[in-house]
């Protein structure tokens, strides 16, 4: 007869080993989790060191309040970042106008109307849309959307803010749709049933119950998508042009912060020139922007959180 299980357990010698692992793993995992913090530190340090050099050459206030961005000028190069910010905002604005209504509508359709099977098919397809490389979108904007726009509105130039704006919008639709759908689906079924049992139509349930209840999640998804639009690079590099402009015109060539970084990365500026340092200053501005968006997202989702 074999010994009892408890005896075998008592005699099994894995014990010491176990204790050591139990002690080591939390520390190891903590170190792994710290990599993301190191990444942020790395980003900030990388950007700041070069940015500081930049500010020894260009006064800080000229940079953040300047309305002319002329880095390549031979006579007097000017580094006022506002035109790049305005360019970024133009594209972001259009992308938001396109993506928010469509994205949220799609989310409502998926979470409130679509059957399980339809949702199972549509969601992965939307994910494909989110996964299309941005360079592909860039050519799509330049060679398809822009010509269509031009045939309707002849005043639109080959490079403009509208076409890349629309395409960036298309790119972030899945993000809004999918995250908002998650937020709506996590509204308990029982609450929906409560409303249906009172004789509400599906639309009333969606509009008056689900959307308000999921509002914090929906807004957070929008903020996240907007920060993706701000940081989008290849689409604007290809289709928005490279003319930094401080005005309200959407039909002509513009330049965004990201496109400027790519322009210099692919370009001719020598190491150690002010232009070289300027990409770090622009990168840092971009980083600050996305950080602000993130703080906003955190605030918004707290502020609009409905309890249930």
């Amino acid at each position, binding site marked *: 007869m074999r010994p009892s299980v408890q005896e075998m357990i008592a005699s099994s010698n894995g014990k010491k080993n176990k204790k050591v692992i139990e002690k080591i793993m939390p520390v190891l995992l903590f170190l792994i989790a710290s990599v993301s913090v190191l990444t942020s530190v790395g980003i900030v340090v990388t950007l700041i060191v070069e940015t500081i050099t930049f500010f020894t050459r260009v006064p800080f206030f000229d940079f953040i309040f300047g309305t002319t961005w*002329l*880095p*390549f*000028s*031979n*006579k007097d190069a000017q580094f006022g970042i506002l035109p790049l910010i305005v360019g970024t905002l133009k594209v972001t604005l259009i992308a938001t106008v396109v993506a928010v209504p469509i994205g949220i509508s799609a989310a409502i359709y998926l979470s409130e109307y679509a059957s399980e099977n339809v949702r199972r098919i549509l969601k992965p397809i939307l994910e494909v849309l989110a996964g299309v490389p941005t360079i592909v979108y860039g050519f799509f904007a*330049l060679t398809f959307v822009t010509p269509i726009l031009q045939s309707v509105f002849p005043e639109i*130039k*080959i*490079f403009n803010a509208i076409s890349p704006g629309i395409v960036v919008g298309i790119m972030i639709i899945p993000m809004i749709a999918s995250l908002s759908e998650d937020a709506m689906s996590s509204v308990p079924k029982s609450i929906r049933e409560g409303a249906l049992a009172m004789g509400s139509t599906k639309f009333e349930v969606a509009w008056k119950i689900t959307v308000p209840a999921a509002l914090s999640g929906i807004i957070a998804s929008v903020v996240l998508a907007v920060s993706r639009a701000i940081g989008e690079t290849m689409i604007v*590099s*290809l289709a928005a*042009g*490279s*003319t930094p402009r401080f005005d309200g015109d959407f039909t*002509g*060539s513009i330049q965004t912060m990201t496109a400027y970084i*790519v*322009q*210099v*990365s*692919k*370009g*001719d*500026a*020598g*190491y*150690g*020139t002010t*232009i*070289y340092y300027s990409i770090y200053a622009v990168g840092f501005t971009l980083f600050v922007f996305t950080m602000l968006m993130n703080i906003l997202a955190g605030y918004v989702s707290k502020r609009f959180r409905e309890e249930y």
Partner: protein
Amino acid sequence: GSTDTGQETSSGEAGVEGTVSGDGSSTVAPIMEGIVEEYAGVQPGVQVTVGTSGTGGGFEKFIQGETDFSNASRPIKEEEAASLEEAGIEYTEFQLAYDGLSVVVSQENDWVEDLSVEDLKKLWVEDGSTKKWSDINPEWPDEEVVFYAPGTDSGTFDYFNEVILEEEDLVSSATLSEDDNTLVQGIQADPNAIGFFGYAYYVANQDTLKVVSIDGVEPNNETIESGEYAPLSRPLFTYANNASLTDNEAAYDFMTYTLENAGAMADAVGYVALPQEGYDEGLTELEALK
């Protein structure tokens, strides 16, 4: 094996192995691509990589000692040369080919045939006024000129800037793009458009664009090679790290092959070869470095 270059190769002693890396001008890239492609057949043991970070970006890496050679669509700048000296890197400049900057308009434009260098400057320099075609020639339409130019951070632009603008600012209404193909598209569609870019892009789009002769000279292989198409033809270069040539057998072998084949390759991809003496000079210089 090489069929299209037609050059006899003095390199290619079998069994050379190693890695060679270069970076730099995207204008030079098509020539380099052809050379690397052929070279891979001749010397399979040598691994060559060439980046396209632009002339400036290439020099940046060259200064850091990260590359064996650096392609350039303009001569090295003083600052860059100074940095190289500081870093203790000795280098040699080799000329590879000529590129003719082509000034083009749409085929729908039926008035412009020829412009002088002064006309170009008048058109392209920012002076606060709106530019109309009739400003150049009263017989031309009273329409606003639409400008297209390569990105201000490219070697191509740099060259135009130096010889036409003479360091004045570019007209601010110009549409700029890093991608020359989009310039082609923009100019094609608009009769009032004018733009400039590398000769190769004109050659590839001859049927939709109209090239403007400068002071009566139209860019073609002869006028560019002879220097008659002045001042808008420019030499393309590669700069080699001397230490690499001495220490790295593969780098030396590849550079030899490059100089032997650059001319034919340039013609094949839409640039203009140097007169043969140009390459021979380079080869002599190279030999001296071994």
